[in-house]
């Protein structure tokens, strides 16, 4: 007959950590080459183009402080309020749902890998993609702004950059977990996520009332404000600066939301019957 059955060892299976790690290792390159990554990069290039245009059109005063103000203004509006939630939504909402909608989930769930591992791995890919895009964009943004203000490299004061990087990364980790869970439970998760992001995270977070404390954005702002000198733009947005929690408390809240998001994703994979729903 000419056939020889392979005699390699049987599949040994993977636990949550090993399962998550192998998912990242195997599927991250695919995510980095995806159309979503291109779209995210285009979105992330917008603030850079904006600051570049401002630099070309207007004479920025040769003063680092003004550069810092511009960084603060664009950083808050573009990076924290727009790019962080929306890029997280782009990667997060598809983390699980693309496997379900593309009907490739069967290859993942009929293998010896724990559902928690799949959830964790898929979230990690979304988080890594989002954080990479945001961080890269922030670095280039800082370089462009620095060159316009002082004619040389990065701005002298790197503190705002670090604070924004920390706030955006923390936000990205939490948002991607929340949107992964959304994608695992809801059909058309991108649309639902858009609604949540636009109504809840953008509008509610800017309502001059204590309700803004119920948004993820609020705790990202805490990292910004408490992480250094108070910032002009946020001074006007945050209702009660005195009552603002510390960075530790904010991280605790964000960490809890992240954990719940991952748990919900794992629950969805464990208890939902995707092959039926397809």
């Amino acid at each position, binding site marked *: 007959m000419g056939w020889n*059955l*392979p005699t390699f060892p049987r*599949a040994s299976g993977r636990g949550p950590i090993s399962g998550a790690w192998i998912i990242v290792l195997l599927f991250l390159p*695919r995510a980095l080459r995806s159309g979503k990554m291109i779209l995210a990069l285009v979105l992330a290039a917008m603030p850079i183009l904006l600051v570049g245009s401002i630099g070309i059109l207007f004479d920025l005063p040769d003063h680092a402080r003004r550069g810092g103000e511009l960084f603060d203004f664009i950083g808050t509006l573009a990076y924290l309020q727009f790019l962080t939630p929306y890029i997280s939504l782009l990667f997060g909402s598809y983390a699980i749902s693309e496997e379900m909608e593309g009907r490739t989930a069967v290859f993942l769930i009929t293998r010896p890998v724990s559902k928690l591992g799949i959830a964790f791995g898929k979230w990690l890919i979304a988080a890594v993609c989002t954080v990479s895009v945001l961080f890269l964009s922030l670095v280039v943004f800082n370089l462009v702004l620095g060159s316009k203000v002082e004619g040389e490299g990065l701005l002298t004061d790197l503190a705002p950059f670090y604070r924004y990087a920390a706030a955006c990364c923390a936000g990205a980790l939490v948002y991607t977990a929340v949107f992964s869970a959304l994608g695992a439970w809801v059909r058309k998760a991108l649309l639902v996520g858009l609604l949540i992001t636009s109504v809840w995270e953008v509008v509610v977070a800017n309502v001059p009332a204590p309700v803004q404390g119920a948004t993820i954005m609020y705790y990202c702002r805490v990292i910004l404000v408490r992480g250094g000198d108070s910032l002009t733009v946020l001074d006007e947005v945050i209702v009660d600066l005195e009552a603002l929690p510390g960075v530790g408390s904010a991280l605790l809240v964000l960490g809890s939301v992240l954990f719940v998001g991952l748990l919900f994703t794992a629950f969805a994979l464990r208890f939902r019957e995707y092959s*039926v729903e397809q």
Partner: protein
Amino acid sequence: MSSIVQTKNLSRWYGQVTGVIDLTLEIGGGVTGLLGPNGAGKSTFLSMVTGQIQPTRGSLTVLGEDPWNNPKLMGRIGYSSEVDAFYEEMTGFDFLCILLRYSGLSRKVGRQSADAALELVGLSHARDRKIGGYSKGMRQRIKVAQALAHEPELVILDEPLNGMDPVARAETTRLVKYLGDVKRHVIVSSHVLYEVEAMTSQILLIHQGKVLAEGNIHDIRDLIDEHPHQVKIECARPRELAARLLAFEDIVSVSIDSPPEGDGNGKAPEEESLPLLTVTSRKPDEFYERVGKLVLETGIEVSRLSSADDNLQAVFKYLVR
């Protein structure tokens, strides 16, 4: 282990719709054919066996374990679903490597295993081609390869011959028989009796969610011969093939349908479907053997060969009378 799959009063409903009803059965070792028309409950049953869905009622054990949320058991099962979905941008080799590493094999062993599995299904020549560029038959074969590659104890193939050309069908049929010969356990589903018969004599007849009969296929063989069998062949030069087929006595009728005209939306010519030849034969066994030979002799391009579901429906109607 005497029973590979064991069920007791197994039922599954989808709201008001029944998938399987009160199934009590034991599937032993070797190759077992799960036979039933579309919508009979075959895929529902296999989805429960592979832990994708839960039974609504009753019990199910696979290799002695409950399959629902049991990742460890999944390492002992290889599953080829009937769904035609892939990571299209991956090559066949990468696809297998990824799934093997995902299943816990090392990189080196995974690569060796992927090559071995590709050879097993006759896809070594296409190992570095993207799955998106594979033909329907090749896609079916790569699905079978991923089900076998990690050397599972139980291989489950859901409609593996769907859409394969005659040559690939013959190869896959031989492969399944071979798996049985080397003492592997295989459950293979189909809605075409002749396909299953070519792979095994041990069958399970399932209709409207219930088991109608189980055991040796020869017991119902006579009934089947009473019903002319209709086969649809998507091929180039259908007139030539039809003329050659009509020379045989068992052919009852032949008809040719032209493919639907292109919609002018830039569909590539190679994606357009070929004319459809519908043949009705009184001796399906001989017909299948003959059509394969004719295709090889004449070099007529056949993109698809499928058996109309009505054939089995007719047999089942007879059985449930």
